[in-house]
C-alpha cells in the first residue's frame, strides 16, 4: 500500500520535474535576442536584429526584413511596432534593441537625449502626410480642418504623448483653434470636439477605430490607409498645419550588432527592391 503510494508520488514528482525541465529547456530564450550569439565564432552568420519600428511600419517592414534575410541571412527577432513614444520608453526600460525607427523627430530627440541611440547613425528615412480618414463609403465630408468640429461622430486621435500622429493631428487642430497648444501636446480640445475625441494608443489603433466604425473620422498617416481595410482619405491636412512628418532611424547605443544594424538601415534606404516595397506601402523616402 505504502509502496504504491510512494511510486505514485515519485511518478508525480518525476513528471513535475520533467515538466519544469521541459519548460526550461524548450525555449527560454529571452527577448534579448539582439545580443544573442554575439560571442559565437560564427557571429557573422548568426546575427539576429531586434528592430523597434513606428507602428505605421507594421505591414511594410516585415517584407523588407524578409527581403534582407533572403539576401544576407541576417534574421530578425520579433519586431516591435508601437507608438514611437512607447518604443522609447520600452528602450529606457531596458529592452534590448538594435535599430530604432520612430515616426517623429521629437521622439528620436528623446532617444538621443536619453543616450539610447547613437546620434551619429541617425538619419531621416521617410516622410509621410497626415490625413483625415473616414470609413469606406460612410460619406462623411471633411473639406477643411474647421469641418472637423461639425463632424457627426467620434474623432480618433493618437494619444499625443506616445503617438506622433496624434501630436501632428493636434498641431493641425491648433492651427484652426480646435486645440489649445500649438505644440500639439499638453493642451485642451475646444469644447466643440472635446467630448468626441477618442484617444488611441497607436496610430494603427486610430485607423482601426475608424475602420470598425467606432469613430467617424480619424487622424492617421497616408501610409496607414494602405494597411487598413475599410478606410479612405477624406481630407489631407495641409503640410503647413503641422510640423514636417519625418521618420528618423538610428542604431541603438546598446546594440551589440551595431555594424549589422547600420548595414540594415543602409539597406532600407538604398536597396532598390526595398525601395519598391516602401513605394507599395506609401512611404516616401525623405
Amino acid at each position: 500500500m505504502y509502496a504504491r503510494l510512494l511510486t505514485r508520488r515519485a511518478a508525480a514528482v518525476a513528471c513535475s520535474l520533467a515538466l519544469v525541465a521541459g519548460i526550461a529547456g524548450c525555449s527560454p530564450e529571452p527577448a534579448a535576442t539582439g545580443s544573442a550569439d554575439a560571442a559565437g565564432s560564427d557571429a557573422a552568420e548568426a546575427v539576429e536584429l531586434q528592430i523597434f519600428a513606428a507602428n505605421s511600419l507594421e505591414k511594410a517592414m516585415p517584407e523588407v526584413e524578409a527581403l534582407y534575410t533572403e539576401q544576407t541571412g541576417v534574421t530578425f527577432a520579433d519586431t516591435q511596432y508601437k507608438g514611437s513614444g512607447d518604443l522609447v520608453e520600452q528602450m529606457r526600460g531596458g529592452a534590448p534593441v538594435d535599430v530604432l525607427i520612430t515616426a517623429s523627430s521629437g521622439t528620436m530627440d528623446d532617444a538621443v537625449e536619453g543616450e539610447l541611440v547613437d546620434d551619429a547613425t541617425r538619419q531621416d528615412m521617410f516622410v509621410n502626410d497626415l490625413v483625415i480618414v473616414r470609413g469606406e463609403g460612410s460619406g462623411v465630408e471633411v473639406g477643411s480642418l474647421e469641418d472637423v468640429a461639425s463632424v457627426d461622430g467620434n474623432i480618433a486621435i493618437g494619444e499625443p504623448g506616445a503617438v506622433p500622429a496624434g501630436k501632428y493631428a493636434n498641431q493641425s487642430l491648433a492651427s484652426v483653434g480646435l486645440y489649445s497648444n500649438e505644440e500639439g501636446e499638453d493642451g485642451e480640445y475646444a469644447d466643440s470636439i472635446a467630448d468626441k475625441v477618442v484617444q488611441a494608443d497607436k496610430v494603427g489603433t486610430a485607423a482601426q477605430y475608424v475602420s470598425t466604425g467606432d469613430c467617424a473620422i480619424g487622424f492617421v498617416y497616408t501610409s496607414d490607409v494602405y494597411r487598413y481595410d475599410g478606410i479612405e482619405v477624406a481630407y489631407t491636412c495641409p503640410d503647413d498645419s503641422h510640423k514636417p512628418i519625418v521618420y528618423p532611424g538610428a542604431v541603438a547605443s546598446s546594440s551589440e550588432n551595431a555594424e549589422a544594424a547600420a548595414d540594415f538601415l543602409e539597406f532600407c534606404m538604398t536597396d532598390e527592391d526595398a525601395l519598391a516595397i516602401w513605394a507599395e506601402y506609401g512611404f516616401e523616402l525623405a
Partner: protein
Amino acid sequence: MTSCCAHTTYRTGASDIMPEAPCRHRAVQLLVALAVALLVLLGCPGRAWAADKSEQAENNAAANEEAGFGLTDFTRYNVGNGRPVKDVDLGYRYPLADDANLVAAVTADGSVLVFVDNKACDVAGFAADAESDAQALRELVEKLDENVSKGGEVLADNPGRGWTVTTATETSCGAYRVRVGVEAGGRRYVSVVPSELAEGSLPSDAADEQGVDLADALLWVDTARLVSAADVAPAAEVSPGERAASFFSELDLRPLMVSLKTSALALAVTFVLGLLAAWKTMGTSSRLKGLLDSVFTIPMVLPPTVCGFLLLLLFGQATPVGQWLIAHGVSLVFTWPAAVLSAIVVSFPLMYRTALGAFEGLDAQMLDAARTLGWSERRIFARLMLPLAWPSIAAGTVLAFARAMGEFGCTLFFAGNYAGVTQTIPIAIYFEWMSGNTDVALFWVVVVILLSFLVILFINVYTARSQRYRERGGAGVARRERKGARAGAEEAADGLEEQGGDALRIDREGLRALLLGDEEEA
C-alpha cells in the same frame, strides 16, 4: 440527510466506473494526468507549429477570355522617391519590374495614362486603338487596381476619369513629362521629369528652377505584364475548406505555447508558495496575520497594470534597485521570465486565499488532536491539512491557472509583446485585432472561451466528486477498515469507530481514516 442520500444514490452509477480513492491518491492521479497532458503538449515541437507563411492567393492576375489578353504581376506603387539611382538623376521615380510591360500612371487630376509596350501588344493580341480592347483593358486594370490598392483610393471609384492608352514610352502632362522604362543602374523605372528639360540639365535641378514638385505629378502608378489570356493562370476558386486550411496553416500557434508554458511554470511556483504562505500565515499572531494577509492579497485587488508598473520599476533600468539588479545579472524586463513572474504575481493571491480559507475551515480540535499524538507541525500540514483541504486547494489551483492564462496588463507592461517569447494569447488577441487581423483575434477568443469553459467544467465536476466523497465518507472509511481487517488491524479500527460525532462527522471521519491509514502503513 434524505437529500444527501438521494444525491449519493443518484451519483452511484458514475462512481462505480471511477473507483473511489482517498483524496490524496486522487490528487496524485490528477497531478500526474495534468503533468502528462502538459508534457505531451510541450513535446510537440513549437517550431513545427509556427506559421508557414505560404504565398497568398493570387489576386494580382486576371484575364479577359473574350478579348484574348490578360494581366499578371499587377503591382501598385503608392509613392515613388526622388533619390538618384547610382548617381543618375531620374527626377521622381517609381520602380518598374524587369518584365513589366504595362504602366498605368494616375495623374494628379485623376486621369489615367496607360503605357503599353509595342511588342507586348502583338504577343498578347492587344490593339491599343481598338475601342473594345481598350475598354477590356480598362476593366482589367480597374479590377486589379482595387485588389492591390491596400485600402487606398481606387481607379474604379471614379468611372468618369479620362483614360489614354499609348504605345509610346513617354508623354507630357501639364508641367511634367512621364517616361516609362527608363534604365538606370541595371533596373527600369517610371520617371517623372519637368516637361521642359534642357539638354544636359538634371531633372531635379530643373524642377527646382521651375518651382514644380515632381512628386505631385502622379497620385500612384500601377505596373503589370500584359500577356495573352492563355498565359494567365486561371484564378483558382478558393473553397471555404481551402480557405480554412490556409488560415490554419498560416496561423501562428506560438501564443498558445507561450501561454501554456508561462502559466504552467507560474502555477508550479504559485502552488508551492501559495500553500506555504497560507500555512505560515495561519500560524502567526493575529496582528502580523492581518499585515501578511494584506500583502499577499494586494496583487488581486490592484489593477494588473499597477503590478506591471511596480515590477518594471523594480527590475527596470529606471531605478537604482533595477540598475543594481541588472548589474548583478538579473535582467528580466521584456524576457520570458518576466512573463512568468507577472503570471505568478497575479495568480498567487488566488492560490493563497483559497488555501487559507480551506485551512481555516478545518476543525482546530482535529489539528490539536494530531498534536496530542505528537505529530510535528510539518507532518500535520502535509498529512492532515493538505488532504482535508484538498478540494478547495484544487479549485484554487485551477483558478490560479486560469488567472495566469488570462494575464494581460501586467505581462504587457513588464514582459512586452514579443511573438513566440512573451506574446500570450490575451496579448495576441489585442495586437492581432489592432493590426487588422480580426479573424486571428477571433480564433484566439474562441480558444480562450473553450479553455475557460473547460476550467469551469473541471471545477464543477471535481467539486461534485469530492462532495460525493465527503458525503460517502463513511463508506470510504468502511472500505479502509475492510482493507485494514485484511491486514489484521481490526481492533484499532474498532476502537476509533466509536468516536463518530454528528456535526463534525465528515472531518472526524477523514481524520480517522488518515490516522488509521497511517498506523496501518507504519
